[in-house]
């Protein structure tokens, strides 16, 4: 095969995906990511099963609001954030620490093809984990309300669209945060401090001026969320007053952040040297 042909690159990306996805899913050290992803589902299913056992009827609107709050303030800001830290920082930096990255660098693979392959593996892994977590939590919300009410919500009140939007937002969060953390893994030999800084920046987003808000991943993710947490009531202290951008612009911006991370990453990966002793 021609070393510069698309068919070769596709075959190589597929080979990288096979290796990386298996590694990501089976890593014992990644168990905490599953726990983070499953936490809301476990909570919501416990609530649902207890209500079913006691024949209590829940208010779907209230549970939806609880889910929206949990999704915005725990799932996106902490679970997906740290899940992406765990997966994307390890793609290159982790293998440097394990002294196994040379396996890829001794193969006739373009460095940027390697980067794309590893990034896609990270996106697939985190998306599968966190989209499944989102879907399971939403299922728990719907399972313990009367069937007619659930059907009315899903097919009559745009609930199906909400479900799709939540799952797509979780996937887009992986795309956006993945690009950021892939790059941080290249730029810093100890990325803990930069990760904390990104976390603080994302947390401070509600309090930033409109222009600076746009320099974050969470701003665009929140623009996509279908249920807004009201500024009054039980969750008022968590509410954020921000002007969302249209969905198409939010999706485009998230893809742009990921593309920027990848582009800067390719510049780093081309310069990458294997020098385990001093790294």
């Amino acid at each position, binding site marked *: 095969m021609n070393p510069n042909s698309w068919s070769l690159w596709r075959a190589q990306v597929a*080979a990288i995906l096979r290796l990386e996805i298996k590694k990501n899913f089976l890593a014992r050290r990644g168990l905490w990511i599953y726990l983070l992803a499953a936490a809301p589902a476990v909570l919501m299913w416990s609530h649902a099963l207890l209500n079913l056992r006691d024949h209590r009827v829940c208010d779907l609107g209230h549970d939806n609001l609880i889910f929206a709050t949990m999704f915005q303030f725990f799932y996106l800001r902490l679970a997906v954030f740290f899940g992406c830290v765990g997966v994307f920082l390890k793609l290159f930096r982790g293998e440097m620490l*394990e002294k196994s990255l040379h396996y890829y*660098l001794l193969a006739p693979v373009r460095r940027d093809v390697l980067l794309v392959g590893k990034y896609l593996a990270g996106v697939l892994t985190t998306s599968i984990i966190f989209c499944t977590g989102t879907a399971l939590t939403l299922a728990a919300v719907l399972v313990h309300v009367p069937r007619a009410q659930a059907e009315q919500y899903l097919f009559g009140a745009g609930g199906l669209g909400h479900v799709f939007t939540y799952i797509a937002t979780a996937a887009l969060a992986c795309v956006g945060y993945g690009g950021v953390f892939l790059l941080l893994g290249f730029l810093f030999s100890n990325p803990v401090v930069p990760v904390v800084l990104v976390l603080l920046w994302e947390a401070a987003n509600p309090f930033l001026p409109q222009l600076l808000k746009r320099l974050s991943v969470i701003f665009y993710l929140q623009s996509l969320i279908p249920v807004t947490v009201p500024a009054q009531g039980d969750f008022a202290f968590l509410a954020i007053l921000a002007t969302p951008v249209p969905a198409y612009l939010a999706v485009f911006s998230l893809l742009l952040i990921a593309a920027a991370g990848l582009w800067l990453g390719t510049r780093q990966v081309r310069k990458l040297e294997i*020098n*385990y002793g001093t790294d």
Partner: protein
Amino acid sequence: MNANEILFENVSRFYGDVLGVNRVNLAIPPGITSLVGPNGSGKTTLMNLMTGLLRPTQGRISVLGVAPDDPEHLFRFVGYCTQFDSFPRGMTGYQFIYSYLRLHGKTHAEADEGTWRAIERVKLTDAAPRKIAGYSKGMRQRIKLAQAISHDPRVLVLDEPLNGLDPLVRAETIALFRSLAEAGLHVIISSHILHEVDAISDQVILLSSGYVVAEGQIHGVRTEVEDHPMQILIRCDRPSALASRIFELDTVVEARVHNDGKGLLVRTRDPDRFYLMLNRLVVDGVDLQSIAPADDDVNSVYEYLIGPDGGSI
């Protein structure tokens, strides 16, 4: 640019302020070339430079006409068995090679066939389905070697490939290197076992503190070491009688009876002339059994050029 040589042109590599290798100029032809030198002399740095794992601070490298910073072309014909003893987690021996061949873009059938062929060459067929984490040091060494040869490279770079191998496997591995070299491959080996280097190398590159101190065929290198006259061992039944006559030759610097009393060790500055003149010295009643150089090997050259205190190798 020579497409049949590995070329280093004024190559230097620094790790910050620390010298890796300095001003290296080499042209490595096909055959077995051994890199010899103490720890920290720059052997691994040279190997990492020629495979693109490191980049030179200055100078230019080409491997059969291809620059090492072009991995998609380079590793089509280069195999590198590194000294790194770490593997991607959870892999079996088979998966280690199979996945590597899939990264080359080979189909499942091609990769499967190539994997078994490479595994059979290093005699690891039984262990192939087992996890590498459970392999012995020697088995890990062999699976790395299988990976390096799995895509039939024209250049094979082997960093301490005989480490951890038992004597039988070591002999088989050396025979494999020889057969590959005879097939026209460039086989670059770093090793600290000097008598093995001596036995298998077509040429040697001696390194010390990041500098190439000598290169070429070992006999040629030895001849150029003028500070140390060549030692020749003459096996005979009456060494004392021979010694008294041998001092008549003006090329002889020193002659002493061998420790076992059955030979004479002669030091000469001009071995070729000494051999010629020795023929004229007919010593009646002295039975000459053999005449052979005594320090025309890597070990001696290493000691003369780098010294016994050159570091542990």
